Every structure is written in structure tokens, then in C-alpha cells.
């Protein structure tokens, strides 16, 4: 079990100790999620909370809770716009008020108690009623996150690590094929070497073998893949002390998920078809230039740039590092090709500045999971409640209400003022197999519950809403992760959520 490490001739110099800064220590638990780039984006943001005051939609507590969850991780600035004065009822639901706040401006009082949470954040307040300050020119200019652009691209979507592996076993490039050839005759290997061939090379070897026996075709369906897996399993040596080989076990476990031709995900396909991607102008955002270059890459090679990551696998250190180098080198070559295209685009469009190499690199690595959210109506502020005359949403209601485990009747009840009574009777009459009563009973219960609690807040409901809104705000501000596209309904009676697209 001993092995000579591939030593360098001179011992490497010790790097100076980079102990974390005070800021890195304070924000350590979140930097592990969105890294320094996400943190920088948060710190550059200014979030405006507009408190609505219509009956049944008091947003002051959910808003304060949202801000708490954004101030703690350190947004740059926040502003609360609320013209109300603090009442006794506020004290029972809003944690960021005290006895001494009574009858004072709710915006100012909440701002000062929230401000205490984090000295790195600046708080501001606006006491004037919304209709006084909103119409002023540029009144919304200082704030992020309020105006939704027509297209909102996200490069770093943090896909599930289980799904991201792109190893190109069915589309190996020359260097990878050469590494497999270099193995030579496996049967001549010592037990140690045989037990340390990385599973990836084993599969490449046996896939060639399979192809030769199956008219040049790779195993494609489940039956063929399981057959192929048995074949691989039979190649393991069992005469050794362990009675088997870990690398062969890993190879068998990888067969089903690793032997698939590379496909283009729906997010990427949509991106390639968006006008901004195909019709570049001098003023196009950096994102679209890189997207266009990646599309050209895809059109030429029928694959995206290689992400270049390699999962850990049983291997010798040197053998693993060698394979890792092959993947990294290919990823770099792909990035170089995309960069080259980007530079050509830049010069043909006459753009004054070059896009940073790191931005192109990040895009290439995440290309398969890039998402562009679109706002087709191009409304700066989409209506989040169902409005009278929103025929499209009304026609979707029957399907929503009768779908499995739906809680859509809560959404219906909360928008009851906008539903024509004839529509309501039709909905109640729908066939429905969901347990817990007929659809009519479900709808009536939801309406009764919403009516009885109308205008009254429960702190838990506001707090959970504030948590969800803050998570979504963080996604939008850091431009990482995939935000919700639609309206989230939370049903605290059944502890369920549902997303409704309006």
C-alpha cells in the first residue's frame, strides 16, 4: 500500500498564513454559499421596502422580517417607505418596535431598531405617503431589486452537484482517448495497478470493447446499460485479498448516470433562442456576447465547453492528477476558443472595453446550467395579485385547483374580490378526487378562513414570508441560484407551499 509520491525537486515555499479577516470570520457561514463575489454584490445593494396599507395586506411585519434577513448578511443600504404611525397592535406583531415607539413614525422606528442588527449597514426611512414621493423623477433610481428588466440572466445557478458531472465518456477527445490507450493490456497489470485504474478510464476501455461488438453503437437504453454494467463487473479481479476491486465497484455504480450523450439543457436552449443572444449590438450586455460565443461553439462542436471538473475516484495520486490535468487542459482550450470568439465579436462591434477573462471562464464552466428569466410583458413591476380581467389566470384556475395536493384554493380565497361569482360557481362544481372533501368544501373553507382572519397578522406567517422573500432577494442580488418565477402561496395550516404563475 505504499507509493512513491511525485515529489518536486525543490521543496515548495511555504505561503504566508492567510488567516481570515474580521469580516470573513463574521460572514463565514454565508461565504461558503455565495462566496466573495456574491457578498460584494450584496454589499453594493440598496433595498427599498414599500409598506402597503390597504386592509388585509399590511406588509410592515413581513417587510421588517425580510429586511432583518438581508441586513444580517450585510446588504449595503436599506430604506423603509411607510407613512403610518406605530399603534399598539403593531407592538404585538413587529419585533422591531418598542413601547417607546408608539405614535411615532413606523418607518423611522423600525429603521432604527433594524439598524442595530448590523453596523456595516446603513438604514434610511421615508415618512411621506407613497403618492407624494413615488411620482418624483428618478425617485426609484437609487434602489436595486425593484425594477425588473425584460431579461435577467444568472450564470452561477448552483446546480445540484450530483447532476453537474459532464465527463464526455461517449464523446472523448484525443487526449482522453490517448490516456485510455496508454493503459495498455489490463491483464498484464499487477494487482495494485489494476486496482488503481480510475473508473473513468475503465469505462472508456470497456465502451470501446462494447462498440466493437455492437456494430459501433454505445449502450443506449436501460437494458443495454445494465448488460454493459454486468460485463464491467465481470472484469474485476476477485482473487486478491479484498475479494474485489473498489475502482470496479465505482465504475459499475457510475454506468447508469455517466453513459449518456451530452444534451443541451432547456435553460441553455432557451437562452440561445432569445433575440438578445442572436442579435448583438455594440450596447449588448457582456452576458449576451459570451452567450453568443458559446452558441457558436455549440453550433460547431455540438457540445458545450467542457466544465473541466473531475469527481474523486479510487486512483493513485499521480494517476488521478494526470486525469484531472487532461480535463482541465481541455476546459482551458474550450475557454480559449470561446474567448477568441468573444474578442472577434468585440472588435467587429467596435466595443471599447474587453470582457474580463474570468467572466468568460465562469460562464463556460456553468454554461449547461445558465438561466435567463424573462419578463415578456416588460412591466417594470409585475402585478403579484390576480386582477380583475386577468382572463389568462382565471382560465388556469380549474387545472390548478384539481391538481394533486393543490392548495390553490388559498390563492383563490385571497383573490376572491377579483373572481366573478359565475366563475366561482363553475369552479365549485368541478369534479375533484382530492382527499379532504369536495372542491366546493375546500373552496368554502378557504374563503371562510381568509375572511375570519382578514386584516389580522400572525407573526409566524409574516416571519416565514420574510424568510422566503429574503432568500429570493439574495438570489436576485447575488445573481446566484434560481429565483422563483411566479407567486408563492404559503399555507400555514397544512405547512405547504405552491407556486402560481400569473
Amino acid at each position, binding site marked *: 500500500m505504499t507509493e512513491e509520491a511525485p515529489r518536486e525537486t525543490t521543496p515548495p515555499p511555504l505561503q504566508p498564513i492567510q488567516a481570515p479577516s474580521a469580516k470573513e470570520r463574521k460572514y463565514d457561514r454565508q461565504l461558503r454559499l455565495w462566496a466573495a463575489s456574491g457578498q460584494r454584490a450584496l454589499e453594493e445593494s440598496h433595498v427599498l421596502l414599500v409598506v402597503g396599507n390597504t386592509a388585509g395586506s399590511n406588509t410592515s411585519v413581513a417587510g421588517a422580517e425580510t429586511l432583518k434577513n438581508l441586513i444580517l448578511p450585510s446588504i449595503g443600504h436599506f430604506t423603509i417607505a411607510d407613512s403610518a404611525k406605530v399603534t*399598539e397592535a403593531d407592538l*404585538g406583531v413587529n419585533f422591531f418596535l418598542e413601547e417607546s415607539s408608539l405614535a411615532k413614525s413606523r418607518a423611522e422606528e423600525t429603521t432604527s431598531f433594524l439598524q442595530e442588527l448590523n453596523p456595516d449597514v446603513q438604514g434610511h426611512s421615508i415618512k411621506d405617503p407613497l403618492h407624494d414621493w413615488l411620482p418624483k423623477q428618478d425617485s426609484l433610481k437609487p434602489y436595486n431589486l425593484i425594477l425588473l428588466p425584460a431579461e435577467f440572466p444568472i450564470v452561477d445557478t448552483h446546480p445540484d452537484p450530483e447532476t453537474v458531472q459532464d465527463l464526455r465518456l461517449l464523446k472523448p477527445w484525443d487526449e482522453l482517448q490517448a490516456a485510455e490507450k496508454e493503459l495498455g493490456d489490463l491483464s498484464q497489470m499487477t494487482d495494485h495497478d489494476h486496482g488503481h485504474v480510475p473508473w473513468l478510464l475503465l469505462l472508456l476501455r470497456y465502451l470501446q470493447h462494447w462498440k466493437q461488438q455492437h456494430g459501433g453503437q454505445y449502450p443506449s437504453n436501460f437494458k443495454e446499460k445494465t448488460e454493459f454494467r454486468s460485463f464491467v463487473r465481470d472484469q474485476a479481479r476477485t482473487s486478491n485479498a479484498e475479494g474485489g476491486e473498489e475502482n470496479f465497484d465505482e465504475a459499475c455504480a457510475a454506468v447508469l448516470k455517466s453513459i449518456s450523450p451530452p444534451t443541451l439543457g432547456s435553460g441553455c436552449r432557451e437562452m440561445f433562442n432569445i433575440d438578445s443572444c442572436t442579435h448583438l449590438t455594440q450596447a449588448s450586455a457582456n452576458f449576451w456576447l459570451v452567450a453568443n460565443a458559446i452558441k457558436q461553439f455549440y453550433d460547431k462542436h455540438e457540445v458545450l465547453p467542457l466544465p473541466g471538473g473531475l469527481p474523486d475516484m479510487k486512483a493513485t495520486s499521480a494517476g488521478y492528477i494526470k486525469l484531472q490535468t487532461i480535463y482541465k487542459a481541455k476546459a482551458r482550450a474550450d475557454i480559449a476558443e470561446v474567448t477568441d470568439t468573444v474578442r472577434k465579436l468585440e472588435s467587429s462591434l467596435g466595443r471599447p472595453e474587453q470582457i474580463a477573462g474570468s467572466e468568460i471562464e465562469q460562464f463556460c464552466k456553468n454554461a449547461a446550467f445558465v438561466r435567463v428569466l424573462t419578463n415578456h410583458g416588460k412591466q417594470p413591476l409585475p402585478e403579484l395579485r390576480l386582477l380583475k380581467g386577468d382572463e389568462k389566470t382565471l382560465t388556469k384556475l380549474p387545472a390548478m385547483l384539481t391538481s394533486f395536493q393543490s392548495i390553490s384554493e388559498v390563492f383563490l380565497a385571497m383573490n376572491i374580490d377579483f373572481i366573478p361569482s359565475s366563475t366561482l360557481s363553475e369552479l365549485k362544481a368541478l369534479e375533484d378526487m382530492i382527499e379532504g372533501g369536495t372542491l366546493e368544501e375546500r373552496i368554502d373553507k378557504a374563503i371562510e378562513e381568509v375572511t375570519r382572519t382578514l386584516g389580522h397578522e400572525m407573526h*409566524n406567517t409574516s416571519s416565514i414570508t420574510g424568510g422566503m422573500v429574503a432568500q429570493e432577494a439574495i438570489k436576485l442580488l447575488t445573481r446566484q441560484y434560481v429565483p422563483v418565477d411566479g407567486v408563492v402561496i404559503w399555507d400555514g395550516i397544512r405547512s405547504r407551499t405552491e407556486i402560481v404563475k400569473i
Partner: protein
Amino acid sequence: MATDTITNGTVSRARWQHLDTILATASPYADEDYVPGPNTVSALESSKILVIGAGGLGCELLKNLALSGFKDIHVIDMDTIDVSNLNRQFLFRQSDVGKSKAEVAAAFVEKRVPGVKITPYNGKIQDKDEEYYMQFKLIICGLDSIEARRWINSTLIDMVDESNPESLKPLIDGGTEGFKGQARVILPTLTSCIECQLSMHAPRAAVPLCTLATIPRQPQHCIEWAHIIAWPEQRKDDLLDMDDPEHVSWLYQKALTRAQEFNITGVTYAMTQGVVKNIIPAIASTNAIVAAACTNEALKLATDCAPFLSNYMMYTGDSESGLYTYTFEAEKKDDCPVCGQLAQNIAVDPVTTLEDFLGTLAERAEAQLKKPSIRTEGKSLYMRFPPGLEQSTRPNLSKKLEDLVSDGEEVGVSDPAFAIQFKFRLNFAK
């Protein structure tokens, strides 16, 4: 105006008008036990409730409980405040670093919400006995340690006395990791318990020692090597303290040097800390969601104003579709080693030594026992305590399982970390 609200130390009821209105009207979702009105409010106010953990979830739980009308809240936490808590534990400030979490959190909420009494205990849950836990109406856990969850779970199950309904203490458990979290309600002995679902908390597969010693491939392997091999070899007289920057720097430098020897890149100081301390990412917003969901269940259990969660909600805020929740009824297992009546089946190799078998109990997802003692119905196979028994059973450690038990025999395993004995049935694998 402010002077009107506090008269002779009692707080005006006006501040509770939202809650009072909701608890004074009938709900179509509540069952017959719910009688809206002042009785429900007083039932809520007299419900003594225990919060375990005053960290990320605990701070939120205390705020939520106080604003949900609970008046008598106890909180246990053995930790002191660290600077890395401040990004989410909103009851603490920079000047509180080093103080008791339970004490600072309790004092803050008591001051902010007049009329609520919060009793802190700065110590371990294991310091307290059944009599202590018996005083509560229900218990909410906001812990990051699976060991502590298992301890309180087994203790509450052990407390259940069928002839005394008051002995059944509902347990509400919350947990978070990054953008994900879960909330669940456990009725000890009646519904699925922590132990029934233990395999959902499987420990990360340990990297084989020979990989660390001879064939490292990942930066994490180099860090584990520095932690598990280099430290005990080179600094055996120093107790490793991951909060000591000198210790972390030493591990980091060792790991870095080793990584360079093997041409491995990516070892950083933050990664060293993360690997050795097993740091779980944590943010305020996820804690807010999970804690509010848990408190909502506490309010339902205390007032019957709506049916409580049956029994598990998973929240995923970083999914491909934005977010989703999965609410389901986790199954109670007949062979749960804690709440089940039957022994749990466990496949063993008959030629394994007892010592090796006991070693695997730490890693098996369904057991996770670190200091097990084991006995059959008739005899002690290996007991760690008392020393005399340890000495007399030690020779069994090197014996094969087939020489100690028969195929399919039931054994009892105890561990100092738990109040109860785990029952396993050892089935010989061919």
C-alpha cells in the same frame, strides 16, 4: 400614550388584538377541541415551553414564541457567542461575543416583549433529568447536532407512561443547511421519531485511511491527513482546538505542504476550517423560515386552532425551480431501535471480530453509535463500564461474531450518549 400601556406592571391587552381576534373566532380547519375565546388564550399563556438551542433557530424561535402569545419560555444552550454567529443570530451584538447564548437571548426578548418570562439555562441538555422535562407542555429543538437531537428524542420516548397522558411531550424539531431546512412534529411513541428517520442524517462517508496516508487526490484528503495523522504524530501533547488560530494555521500549512508534494491544488484556510470543524453553511433567511414553521406548530399544539403538521416538511430554497416544499408523513418504524417494538435487522459478516463490528456501528447510517456496549439476552459480550466488567469482557473483542452469537440472535446495544438500549437482530450474510 405609552404610559397607558403599562399599568402596575401588566401590559395592555391592546397589543395582542391581532392574535386575540384570530383565537376568538371559529376556524373551518380546527377540530372540535378548539374553543375560540379567552380560554384558548389562557391555555396558550399557561403553556410552559422549552426551546433547546439559542443559536440561529433558537433566536428566531424565542422571538416567534414571544410574539405568538407564549408567556413562560425556557431556553437551554451550552454555547457562548462567537463572531461567526452574528450573520444570523440577531439577538446578539459584537459586544456580546464570549457571553452565554441562552442568557443574552433570553434577556433581549424579555426586554423587547414585555410580559414574557424567559428562563435561560447555560449548560447541556444532559444535565437535566426527567423531572425537569416533565414540567413542559412541549419542546422545540433548534439544534445543529444530531447527537443532541437523538438524546432528547430517546429521553422523551423513555418518559412516556401510558397511564399518564401528561407524560407525552410533543417534540418539534427544526434544522437547516444553507438554503434548505426541515420542520417536523414528533409525538413520542405515537409517530415517527428522530431515530426512525436516522438514515436521512447519514454521516458523510469517511475517506479510507490508506487514501489519506498514501494516495491523496483532493485538497480535503490533505487536510484530513494533517488533522488525523500529522497532528497526533507531531503534536500529541496539544489538544487540538479549532478555535485557536495557531492550531488551524498549523493544520493549514501541513495540508498545503502535503498538497504541493502531490501536485494537488485548492487547499485554503477556510476549507481547512470547514473540513475539520465540519462547518455547515447557515443564513438568517432559512432559519427564519424553519423557525416560523416550527413556532406555528407550537401555536397549533398549544391552542388546537388548526391541525398540527403530520409530520414532516422539507423546504428547499435552492432548487432548479426556485423553491419547493415537500410535506409528508414520515413512517414510524416497528423496528426503530428507540420507539419500535421490534429489533432492527442488521446484516453482519459472521467472521468479523466483535471489535470490528462495534467499530462499524459508528458509521452505519441506521446506528451511528460511537461508544457501544453490547449484550445478548443471556450474557454481556462487551461492556465499557464498569472497569471490572470491561476487563472480563475484553477478550471477546477479538472473537468472531459466529463464535459469540447465533444467526438471527437479538442483541442490545447501549451507548453513554443515549438514555435507552438499541435492539438489533444480527443476521449472518453469506
